[in-house]
């Protein structure tokens, strides 16, 4: 890697909870990069996701509040019914505007915002899902020089989202979860 990444942004939908749990389970509690996870969820439903992730992972899992400051060692979950944006001062900004790709939170919104702030220092990952959300955002990250990774479609619970992402960005890296996991671990600086 010629640039030191500053943030990992992950998007998933159907099958995305399981895949992201598997992906993140071994990351150390002091993992050097903040991780932001956007999963499609049912609107107006109180998610138990934060508790689940906090229980299963060593990272501290929190549901994003407006103006929270990004810190390493944290997994930031997009809250239901809000888009998640990033500010130049490393804080989050929430947004309740129109659905994108029938979703709020939309993966594209967070991917694009992260690329606007961090340029080539973003790692974007698309996991399993029955939607095409994430593909244009991943391409946007790619266009700004960031690292773009897509879960191997044959391994994904639903291949629609990985396939759409690969189609939009043929130059992406297609990897199995175990490989993405090893890659993320390799970025950890003690």
């Amino acid at each position, binding site marked *: 890697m010629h640039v030191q990444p500053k943030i990992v942004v992950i998007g998933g939908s159907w099958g995305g909870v399981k895949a992201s749990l598997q992906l993140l389970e071994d990351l150390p509690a002091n993992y050097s990069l903040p991780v932001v996870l956007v999963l499609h969820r049912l609107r107006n439903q109180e998610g138990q996701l934060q508790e689940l992730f906090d229980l299963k992972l060593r990272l501290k899992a929190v549901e994003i509040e407006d103006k929270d400051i990004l810190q390493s060692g944290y997994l930031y979950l997009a809250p239901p019914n809000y888009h998640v944006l990033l500010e*130049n001062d490393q804080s989050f*900004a929430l947004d309740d505007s129109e659905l994108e790709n029938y979703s709020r939170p939309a993966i594209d919104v967070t991917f694009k915002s992260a690329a*606007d702030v*961090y340029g080539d220092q973003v790692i974007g990952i698309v996991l399993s899902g029955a939607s095409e959300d994430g593909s244009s955002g991943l391409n946007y990250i790619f266009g700004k020089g960031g690292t773009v990774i897509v879960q191997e479609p044959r391994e994904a619970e639903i291949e629609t989202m990985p396939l759409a992402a690969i189609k939009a960005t043929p130059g992406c890296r297609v990897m199995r979860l175990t490989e993405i996991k090893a890659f993320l671990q390799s970025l950890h600086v003690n």
Partner: protein
Amino acid sequence: MKLSSDVLFEQDVEVLIKEIKEQYGYDFSGYARASVYRRIKRFMGQKNLQTLDELREPLFSDSFFFENFLQEVTVNVTEMFRDPSFFLSLRQNVLPILSTYPYIKIWDAGCSTGEELFSLAILLHEEGLLNRTKIYATDINQKVLKQAREGIFPAKNIPASTKAYYAAGGKREFSSYYTSNYGSVKFNSELVQNVVFYPHNLATDSSFNEFHLILCRNVLIYFSRNLQERVLTLFDESLVSLGYLGLGKKETLVMSGISANYNPVDKVNRIYRKLN
């Protein structure tokens, strides 16, 4: 690293914000930038404009174009009984206390197209309080205020609104509140007969009355910390002792200077009560 083209774009937006303030008097300097950038890019995409210079020309020569821009840049997306648990909590925890006042004054700040306002009015009606309540519904945007006054919403939203209404403790047939007509529904205008609509800019205008309850949900998320603090102080000055403040689900008083004088009534739903 952030791309230099993005740095330039953001610098140009700062200039644009100044120019808008000079020409039209709308001050976006306290708005959360991530959202402003996104909304401007989105608007430019809709109008097929490639650069901020291309946007600048019609923006400053055509006030209708500016109205349209204003409408798009300030987010006006809302729904009836958004977060039903908030409205249920209002019904169970706040309205019974408000009912002890002979006359109730409520400020719906940033009422947008009126979905929240009508939800609130239905709640007050069902709790027998609507007749002795005056609601001040304000927004920065004249156009959405007009829509709010009319109470006409797309019919396609009705299934979701109906579901949310019952989840918020609704007691009637939801359809008894509106009449349907060609893809839209019009809500009973008696619901808003005690509502005063007028333009108010949270970024620049001051307190104008005292209220027992202020609702301002998912408005502060579009503001910077500094502007949030200004607005919260404005609310503090506009609330009676023991008055209530309802924010959006991911908005909080915790970081604010006024928080010491407030108790959370419902932590999850972000309903706070002023102490004195």
